[in-house]
């Protein structure tokens, strides 16, 4: 009896650990796809805003070059990870196709800008970062608009 109890406890903890890794599951319905799209947009918005702040501290001389470079690299990796996971989700219908296209454009643009910021930071040209990060302001607004109303362009 005690062994069964221990085995059940170990199983429950294992399930909890696996669930905690947040594996990307398929989207079977439109709502499910919208929910996953919104999660992706939130994740990318977080990285975009982090990159904006990093650019600001870099250009204003409030941070060391290597630190800004690490922030940019991590933001870039996070955008790429979210983009990769989102690309693998099968859209279940035409509405989802349009949603996918809308968010996909935002993800590609975010990735491009953040990658460029990372390159600039690695070159030590910190004074150029804030100027280069200007498109992120508009991208952040568009990502926020998507989060507020996920779906094809209204």
């Amino acid at each position: 009896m005690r062994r069964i109890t221990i085995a059940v406890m170990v199983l429950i903890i294992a399930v909890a650990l696996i669930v905690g890794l947040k594996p990307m599951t398929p989207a079977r319905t439109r709502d499910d796809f919208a929910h996953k799209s919104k999660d992706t947009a939130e994740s990318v918005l977080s990285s975009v805003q982090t990159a904006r702040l990093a650019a600001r501290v870099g250009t204003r001389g409030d941070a060391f070059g290597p630190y800004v470079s690490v922030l940019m690299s991590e933001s870039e990796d996070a955008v790429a990870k979210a983009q990769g996971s989102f690309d693998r989700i099968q859209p279940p219908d035409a509405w989802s196709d349009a949603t996918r296209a809308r968010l996909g454009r935002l993800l590609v643009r975010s990735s491009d800008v953040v990658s460029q910021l990372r390159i600039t930071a690695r070159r030590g040209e910190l004074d150029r970062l804030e100027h280069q990060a200007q498109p992120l302001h508009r991208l952040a607004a568009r990502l926020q608009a998507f989060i507020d109303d996920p779906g094809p362009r209204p």
Partner: protein
Amino acid sequence: MKKVFGVTLGILTAMGGFVDIGDLVANSETGARFGMSLAWAVLLGVVGIIVYAEMAGRVASVTKRATFDLVRERLGARAGLLNLGASFFITMLTLIAEVAGVALAVQLVVDVNYLLWIPLVGFAVWMVIWRVKFTTLETVFGLMGLGMIVVVVAVVHLHPSWSQLWHHASHPSVPSGEGRPTYFYFAIALFGAAMTPYEVFFFSSGAVEEKWTRSDLVLNRANVYLGFPLGGLLSLGLMAGAALVFHPLGVGVDSLSQVALPTSMAVGKVGLAFVIVGFVACTFGAALETALSCGYTVSQYFGWQWGKLVKPREAARFHLVVLVSLFVAVVVGVTAIDPIKVTEYSIVLSAAALPLTYFPILVVANDRTYMGDDVNGPFKNAIATFYMVVLTVVALATIPLMIATKAGS
């Protein structure tokens, strides 16, 4: 004068040593996501660790025996073994997170991938444990950890609306877009981060190592009653910084580099330098404590000779456990497992196992055959019993909440 200096040093050390990778991540993450609405969970955890660390220190001073030594005696071999398994697993997870945490902090200075630093960090931790005196390592890393005070300075420099911060902290509510289960899951994470079991293993074993007696109870109380709350202030500073900078922008904290960003924005390069030194000290100090705690728990359970004050030849098995634990931490760390995820797991699973650690301390602290006249008073028992109920509820709720919220996602 010497005594006053000793007490002051102890307080500063306890304050600097309070924060570890779990506190760094959990406080910033919750500040970014929930603003100050989970500040109550930090306060609850700080009071809890004060109550039980004081008890553990008192038990060690009076009985000259550390926590795990008494766990086996009071719970018996089988229940003690279950306790050992759970505690060791969680302390091991914490050790992995701390070693990776030091490497991540070093990466912020040199921009070389943290994976390359992990083996060096593991070696450095082992060397310090092997070569440096107990009091020296406690004092040096505790005082260096005071660099973290800059996070509180940063909050002041961010010119917050204090009344608004206080309102959010004193009128906790679930922010829109967040579910109640997620809110309580993160409350548990903060509580677990403040009451991590290794803290009492280390604290009580340290008291035995430093040969504390009844006359050291003043030092024990000063460390715990002043040092820990001031350490809790650092935790709230991290939370407030993240709440002010990240929360309005929708930024989620999932890396150590982000934790330093509010300080960098508010205080500039000097602040950033202080906070990174603080990161290194806090995580390195905690890596030392967790590595030693691995050795302490196993050795105390099996009744082996243990401790840094004993010649390594006479405590060979203790040092072997420490060495193997560090080796495992390095091996797991270099597999590129996400150190922040490991940290999140370690603090949440800590919460699930808290009663296993704290219940035996409460029992022994009430046993006159061990404690003589230094048993708990009625007031202390009332608080400790209240906390035991909280710990039990938290332990029962942790895993279901972890599954229901997909670990807070």
